[in-house]
């Protein structure tokens, strides 16, 4: 098999071998249902609560405030729909941003159909939410503000603490989609006045199909998945113990290695950004230059289209992603790139490269060389490019 340079860690990550090792006994040996009374079940319950405590620690929260879900999308759906349901007698207005993940945006659209009103606050050209617009959007009927911690496409980190303070000041609940941020940047739910927070295991070298929602004690959110009494009666379904154990170990690992790992990633990321901007003409960086996720670089190359670029990169063993229409189920260009002001045709030619701790300078050099020739080739084919 040819060597693969995997630069799509914002899409998903490799499950760390030590995470898999930790999960294994819970498949075939300690497979008991955590809601049972016998020893085998207790073993599961203890393992689960250990993971809960690890995660709570990572956020400055308490174990009983962590609720396991099937991933980021479920956490986002839960946070929005079930908060709206619980607080609808207080008001029907929700504030979010224009650059949220679809798990938030499509949920908001659904809520609009149920009679809720949603304000989608603008971002500036770096993808930072406009705080003055956010403040202006607040109404007496506003029950929830949901703004992502860091954007999945352009990597921009939001002023979460300021948003939390605004929410607190107005007595409004604050949810943040931290699927991209958890494990990558330090987060403290008290300092940032976060009432709810979504995260997903597979973004931090944990398993797929597991995530959590942090719910501050006292928040009266309803259930989203109704049924059994699991998760303190708030989220039904037999607990995914191997997944939960894996998420716990992945969290421990991500937190322990965060400083060193992200320092290295930032160095490589900046090297990549600097060289690409200097060596490839008609190129721009998307997202905030410094206030971005340690591993995220996002470029727009004029005159070319994303999918073709991705296929060519793949032929060289490089995995990247694009805000391009063609890669997702939808054909529209990325709403995030449009929100930061890119015209359609430029939004189409964007490339997101997201690093991991395994990426070396040699990898980056290789990628830059390949990228240069791919872009040259595609431009020579493009009816938009005349030089």
């Amino acid at each position, binding site marked *: 098999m040819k060597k693969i340079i995997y630069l799509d860690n914002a899409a998903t990550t490799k499950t760390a071998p030590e995470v898999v090792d930790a999960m294994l006994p819970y498949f075939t040996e300690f497979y008991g249902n955590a809601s049972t009374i016998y020893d085998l079940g207790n073993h599961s319950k203890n393992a689960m609560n250990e993971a809960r405590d690890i995660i709570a620690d990572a956020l400055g929260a308490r174990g009983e405030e962590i609720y396991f879900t099937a991933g980021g999308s479920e956490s986002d759906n839960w946070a929005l729909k079930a908060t709206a349901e619980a607080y609808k007698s207080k008001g029907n207005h929700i504030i979010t941003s224009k650059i949220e993940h679809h798990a938030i945006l499509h949920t908001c659209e659904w809520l609009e159909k149920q009679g809720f009103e949603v304000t989608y606050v603008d971002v500036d050209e770096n993808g930072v939410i406009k705080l003055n617009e956010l403040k202006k959007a607040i109404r007496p009927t506003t029950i929830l503000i949901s703004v992502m911690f860091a954007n999945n496409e352009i990597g921009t980190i939001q002023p979460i603490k300021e948003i939390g303070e605004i929410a607190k000041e107005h007595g409004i609940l604050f949810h943040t989609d931290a699927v991209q941020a958890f494990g990558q940047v330090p987060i403290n739910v008290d300092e940032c006045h976060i009432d709810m927070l979504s995260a997903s295991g597979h973004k931090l070298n944990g398993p797929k199909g597991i995530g959590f929602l942090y719910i501050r004690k006292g928040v009266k959110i309803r259930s989203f998945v109704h049924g059994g009494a699991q998760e303190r009666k708030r989220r039904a379904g037999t607990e995914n113990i191997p997944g939960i154990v894996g998420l716990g170990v992945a969290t421990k690992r991500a937190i322990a290695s965060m400083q060193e790992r992200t320092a290295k990633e930032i160095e490589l990321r900046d090297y990549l950004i600097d060289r690409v901007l200097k060596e490839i003409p008609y190129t721009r960086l998307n997202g905030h230059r410094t206030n971005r996720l340690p591993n995220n670089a996002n470029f727009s190359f004029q005159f070319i*289209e994303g*999918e*073709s670029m991705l296929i060519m990169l793949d032929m060289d063993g490089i995995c990247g992603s694009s805000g391009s*229409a*063609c890669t997702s189920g939808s054909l529209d260009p990325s709403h995030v790139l449009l929100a930061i002001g890119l015209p359609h*045709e430029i*939004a*189409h030619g964007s490339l997101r490269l997201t690093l991991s701790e395994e990426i070396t300078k040699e990898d980056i050099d290789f990628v830059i060389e390949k990228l240069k020739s791919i872009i040259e080739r595609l431009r020579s*084919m493009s*009816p938009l490019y005349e030089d």
Partner: protein
Amino acid sequence: MYSEKVMDHFQHPRNVGEIENASGVGTVGNAKCGDIMRMYLDIDDNGVIQDCKFKTFGCGAAVATSSMATELVKGKTIQQALEVTNKAVMEALDGLPPVKVHCSLLAEEAIHAALWDYAEKHHIKIEGLSKPKNDISEGEEEDEY
């Protein structure tokens, strides 16, 4: 997701480029995905397409269908070229994923646009050819869930 033939035409696209003083040039775009295709035709006095070149700003399927379409129309008469529909191009490529069917329409329309341009320049009327749209978006509705 793509067939081997698509990948082959994507990796080694035939007839990329421009034709200077082409008999007909057509550019079409697809607002839905923002992609653009330009087709150049060199048509001799007997109405036979001697050469055909393209430039495409678009996805892998757009590149491959452009390439295949140029191959299919080369050497054909104008009337035969009109039979190079998007279906014919897709078949020649061993199919496309459903979400990519519209990309092949881009190729069909680009040929039509280039022929229209040729007809206008030569003040002739081509049987069965109507003025091509600039934007070939089908406007098909997506299922809502």
